[in-house]
């Protein structure tokens, strides 16, 4: 069957009479399978160094956590009044990153955004690993980790129960259920691809392992029907779930009385920021991955452009929220609230505040220009700024509000210790160790889903007519 060869130029040209092609380079179904499986067959010479560096950082995390459990949270830079420091900042940072994966897998699915198929698998994996990092911080933050079971409603010898009227407990449920549901959704999407890996595996062990997790999937249409229904329901429940998770994370702050935290704008502002930070991380991961693993035909410049547009949108929403917080602080006439915000921008932490503003509000504005947002290297650089800026946002919110609280005599400047830094850097070790293992053993693009968005997947597709049309597209693309 003749396959039309689409190029980047066809894809970036905005046409009203047809949708842009999502798979480039004249791939057919078989070549898509091979393209995605190649990094697993031959991970290349970049994989081991990447894995070993990640593993070393994970070791740093292990040491930092072990010393924390041994000695207690006193090893961190916490003081009174700043009794929530980097641990909560890192928690919110990581859980926010997870949100982009669910947005891509669930919300874009409900909106029938077919381009999501190229990136949803890796983004969902990123979600799982980010949530694992996020959950580790409150776990170690409790100090006596062996008493963590107190947060769960388990009948115990003290006849005591957790307080369900506290947002901190809602958070336990929200984040752990978010992690679990993301894992179920990710695995559901994986079943057909694991069957593909099983059927093309050369080694007996690989065949057995992929086969075990593929559950005996045989592409039956009767199965696909239940499967698609299940997939739609999982997308349908993940959508309100992901919006609820960062809403509840924001309640940790908003339900308290601290000026700078006690604001009603927090839920939408946190959700927008979470999606913004998550897309930043997806771009940071996928722009190098598509080159290293030869996936440029599936994760195309148009995918990068679309993600850059979402960064522009959510970054601007976050900027609006920053401005609105200031406006309300002034408009409320409340001196504590006004002081808290004036102090954020011009007080002892103004360096953190302006880092946040430049990274989160100013840097995405470059994406108004098509030339810049279709330049992968430029988008990659901005994505790093977004990651930095969103970490600083949580730092600004958590620390500036506490450091200068109601009573000036108790004000204190917070600075982290080496152990705060070690646990933060170390959490990247956990994240990248999991991610490198993922790209080594799991298809990092959803094979079956990408096939559904190729023109030849449509049973009423006429190859002859399409290739004629494609040829005109190619000719027009060439003329530019």
């Amino acid at each position, binding site marked *: 069957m003749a396959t039309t060869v689409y190029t980047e130029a066809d894809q970036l040209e905005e046409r009203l009479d047809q949708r842009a092609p999502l798979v480039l380079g004249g791939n057919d179904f078989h070549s898509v399978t091979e393209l995605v499986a190649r990094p697993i067959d031959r991970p290349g010479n970049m994989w081991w160094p990447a894995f070993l560096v990640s593993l070393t950082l994970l070791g740093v995390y292990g040491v930092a956590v072990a010393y924390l459990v041994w000695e207690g949270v006193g090893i961190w830079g916490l003081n009174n009044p700043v009794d929530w420091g980097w641990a909560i900042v890192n928690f919110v940072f990581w859980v926010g990153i997870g949100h982009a994966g669910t947005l891509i897998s669930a919300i874009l699915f409900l909106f029938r955004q077919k381009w999501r198929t190229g990136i949803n698998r890796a983004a969902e994996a990123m979600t799982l690993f980010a949530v694992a990092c996020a959950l580790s911080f409150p776990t170690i933050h409790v100090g006596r980790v062996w008493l963590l079971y107190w947060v769960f409603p388990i009948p115990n010898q003290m006849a005591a129960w957790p307080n369900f009227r506290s947002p901190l407990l809602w958070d336990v449920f929200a984040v752990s259920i978010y992690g679990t549901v993301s894992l179920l959704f990710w695995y559901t999407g994986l079943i057909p691809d694991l069957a593909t890996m099983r059927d093309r595996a050369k080694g007996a062990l690989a065949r057995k392992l992929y086969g075990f997790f593929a559950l005996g999937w045989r592409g039956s*249409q009767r199965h696909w029907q*239940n499967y698609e229904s299940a997939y739609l*329901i999982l997308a349908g429940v993940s959508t309100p779930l992901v919006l609820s998770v960062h809403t509840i994370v924001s309640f940790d702050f908003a339900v308290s009385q601290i000026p700078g935290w006690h604001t009603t704008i927090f839920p939408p502002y946190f959700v927008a920021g979470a999606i913004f930070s998550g897309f930043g991380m997806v771009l940071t991961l996928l722009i190098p991955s598509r080159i290293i693993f030869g996936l440029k035909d599936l994760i195309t410049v148009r995918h990068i452009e679309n993600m850059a547009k979402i960064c522009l949108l959510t970054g601007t929403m976050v900027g609006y929220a920053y401005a609105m917080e200031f406006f309300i602080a002034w408009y409320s006439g409340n001196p504590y609230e006004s002081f808290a915000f004036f102090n954020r921008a011009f007080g002892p932490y103004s360096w953190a505040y302006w880092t946040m503003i430049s990274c989160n509000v100013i840097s995405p504005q470059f994406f108004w220009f098509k030339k810049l947002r279709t330049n992968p290297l430029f988008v990659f650089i901005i994505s790093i700024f977004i990651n930095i800026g969103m970490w600083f946002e949580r730092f600004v919110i958590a620390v500036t509000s506490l450091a200068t609280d109601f009573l000036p005599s108790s004000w204190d400047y917070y600075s982290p210790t080496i152990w705060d830094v070690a646990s933060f850097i170390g959490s990247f070790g956990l994240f990248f160790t999991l991610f490198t293992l993922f790209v080594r053993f799991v298809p990092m693009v959803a094979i079956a889903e990408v096939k559904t968005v190729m023109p030849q997947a449509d049973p009423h597709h006429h190859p002859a007519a399409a290739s004629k049309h494609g040829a005109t597209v190619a000719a027009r693309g060439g003329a530019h």
Partner: protein
Amino acid sequence: MVGKPSVALAEFDTAGEIYHACEHVRDAGFSRWDAHTPFPVHGLDKAMGIGRSRVPWIALVCGFTGAGLAFWLQAWVHSSAYPLVINAKPYMSWQAYIPVTFEVGVLFTALGTLIGMLALNRLPQHYNSLFKSARFERSTDDKFFISIAADDPRFQGEETLRFLQGLGASHVELIED
């Protein structure tokens, strides 16, 4: 050891071919048959004449069960098991119970959806006579298959193979169990 025929398998090259072949198999009155495709082919369930999925009903029941249990747990903990006034809130402060109720509802829906989908599909099932066919391995790659089970009342061995061949199959075979 040669057993008796268990399934007739026909291979097709494109989504369009299997779509039309399925319409013919459906119209010929077969009941115990299936199509196997590397991805869900749009509209193929209609071409095969199979009804709607029952997964949504399972999800609905599980979701309400989870939400109901979660609400009951919180109400019971704060009004009966461990009644404690915190922040001057009433024992039965139902507004505060909504987040956990919602989250647990979602958890039960997701678990019910995945487990229900697998149960309806009778998976995991690591043995199937279709896996004996070497060509069938491409059903998860780029080929499209129709299988008609030997216990279908209209199954007639070689005759059925010829029928499938006539629908434009690029390859047909009988798999023995």
